[in-house]
């Protein structure tokens, strides 16, 4: 249950068939993201909201001199806004966009741990029942006998798509049904 300052070490282990994932809580659900795209995890220490932006773009924060957008993926999933609490963290991810690496922060209720999930413990996503857009799911990983949704960062944090939404209107949310 460590919540602050994970370094993006341990990356070499990701080369093997068992990959490492960071699990975190969002709403009451546990999700996981492959650690290779994670730059660092910071405790939530305030952010600046940008007016007239869609609700999933919660604001921007200062990461040692760089202004990083903070995305509320819960809102992006069509769920409720993530409340800010003492456990709230921002997972800073590296997202490739037009040949450049862009940092995007993801607001989570709390981070759990880094786990290793073997390839054979990953199931394909169900055709329904996850209440998520299918392309957002990379697979269903089994952790301690429980399934967690392994998120596909490329789609969940697609810069192009999110920019499009923020460009078109403030209210239009990605429809999931």
């Amino acid at each position, binding site marked *: 249950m460590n919540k602050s300052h994970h370094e993006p070490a341990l990356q070499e282990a990701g080369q093997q068939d068992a990959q490492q994932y960071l699990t975190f809580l969002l709403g009451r659900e546990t999700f996981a993201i492959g650690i290779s795209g994670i730059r660092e995890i910071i405790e939530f220490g305030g952010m600046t909201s*940008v*007016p*007239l*932006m869609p609700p999933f773009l919660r604001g921007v924060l*200062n990461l*040692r*001199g760089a*202004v990083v957008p903070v995305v509320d993926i819960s809102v992006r999933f069509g769920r409720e806004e993530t409340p800010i609490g003492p456990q709230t963290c921002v997972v800073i991810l590296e997202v490739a966009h037009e040949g450049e690496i*862009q940092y995007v922060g993801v607001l989570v209720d709390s981070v759990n741990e880094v786990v290793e999930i073997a390839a054979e413990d990953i199931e394909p996503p169900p055709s329904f029942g996850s209440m998520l857009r299918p392309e957002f799911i990379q697979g269903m990983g089994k952790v301690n006998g429980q399934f967690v949704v392994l998120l596909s960062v490329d789609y969940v944090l697609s810069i192009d798509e999110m*920019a499009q939404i923020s460009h078109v209107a403030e209210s239009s949310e990605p429809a999931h049904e």
Partner: protein
Amino acid sequence: MDLSKAKDTFLQEARELLQQFETLLLKAESASLDSEDLGALFRTVHTIKGSAGLFGFEAIVSFCHTVENVLAQLRSGTLSLTPELSQLLLLCRDGISRLVDDAEVSETPLVEVPEAERALQDALASVGVHEETPAKPRSIPVATMHADVDDAQRWHIRVKFGADVLRGGVDPIACLRYLSTLGTISGMQTLFPSLPALDELDPETCYIGFDFTLTSSASLAEIDGTFDFAREGSEIEIKSLTPVAVPAAAPAPDNQPEPEARHAEPVARKPGEGKFLKVEAAKLDRLINLVGELVIAGAAANVLSVNRNDNQMQEAISTISTLIEQIRDGALNMRMVPVGEIFQRFPRVVRDVAHELGKDIELRISGEETELDKSMVEKLTDPLMHIVRNALDHGIEPAAERKSSGKPTRGKIELMAYHESGSVVLEVSDDGGGIRRDKVIHKAVERGLIESGAGLTDAQVYHLLFEPGFSTAEAVTNLSGRGVGMDVVKKNIEALRGEIEIESREGQGTTMRLRLPLTLAIIDGFLVQVGPSQFVIPLDMVLECIELVTQESRYRRYIELRGEVLPYIDVRDIFDIHDAALPSYRYIVVVQYGNKRAGLVVDHLLGELQVVIKPLGKLFRGAQGISGSAILGSGEVALILDVPQLVQVACRQEKEEIEHHHERSHTEHACGK
């Protein structure tokens, strides 16, 4: 020994010198050059030749030598700079530039001068200047006696190279190799008085020297110039063995510094050296990132010291904070370069293209001191070039047409740069025929881009020009009109998060305006607070601040300011900030944008500050009324207001509100019936 770094320096220096060379020649077209200019002209090529020799770029040496001979005669006054010669020299500049480019990319340097440059060499000879390359015999006898072209003289040269010469990237052998292109070396003796025993020998230290006789027709300055790069720590002695004192007989060395003087201050020869330091951009970026972290660490320390209630500590930390801020500003400023760096290429382009098109066009440049981020400057050159070429080709009409429409036959193109509300604006305007709306529409319909031109605003019509494959020029010229271009220009500008505006009046001219964000630029801002958020208003837009007097009608959103109506925007309303208590006193910041004024209603005035603009990134492309963000001393992010856009948003919101009311009253009316 790694020569590649030294080579990079050579390439960069050569390019800068060529630029100088060009600027001087272009200056000669409007004003006559004084002896200082002519001397400078000579030195540029001479320096390139000298350095090229060190690297064994034979082709450059040989070609520069020919050019240099002509320049030497210009300098001595035996030849005058005619427009034809100036043109030829410009072409030679391009020739040298090509050779330098070649030296950069090819593994083995060219030894022979290529065909195109050889033709130039011949052309130079036909201007009435004779060749002086050792390979060719002199062809035309000249009446004037001249040091540079005098009969071969014998020189006794004794060089003891400095111990650090090798470490400085200079190969003594290259000096000799270069000298051997100037003449014949004889009686060579190698000097190694200080050569230590083998086990004490440091392979990176230079222990040798040479003593030899050179038979050459080159001037003393030329021979001496060979050792320019090796001068430091070296002992160089050049004595003429020919009894007749050369300087007395020749006019050339008059304005040439004496060799002794040059030994004394070798730095003085290159103008600008010492004033600038070349630094790898990546190093600077790393520094800037570190400084960014330092600022935040400093702010954290500040908070701690305040909490501790330790006055001495607080004082010390505030001193440190001030210094950190200065360091940050300094570091960021280093990335900024004046736009002049791009603009200086244009006089030549305009001149050449106008010449080619048979048009008489004058170029005016202003605002070249406007600063822009270095990385942007590099990406702006091509789009700007394209726009200027377009203006030359399609904008300015042929002289006859201009005359018949009552305009001066000489066309005018203006390049302008200035800062406006947190962006850099680059303008290219011409006084040509303007964009013909009907022609654009006709073409767009023909290409199937639109159905008809009806109902399109001018801006929309001009926007069609940016469609891929669109071109209105009837004849496809060498320069433009092939329909590639404007769409690429637009793409490039958008990649820099900038935008293009076109303003045009038929018969009067066109203005293309590139509005670019100041990535990494620093602006003076005025910090205000609205609810929990802090915003920065570019200071140059702020006129004054006044207290807001509560209005009697909630529909009245203007005040009277010294007899004028001042409409205002409540930032709380427009940005939907309602989660904080309304303070009892609020303020209006009066801002000016373009030639209009407006008020911005804010909760608190926090004062002036200098901020570094950080773009918000692509995710916030749709942000309205916000042009970027800035990191405050506390580490918090504040948003920078885009005032003109904010006004647009306010106009739209108001319009919607009115329509909404209108509709509602209609439906109410209908229901009542």
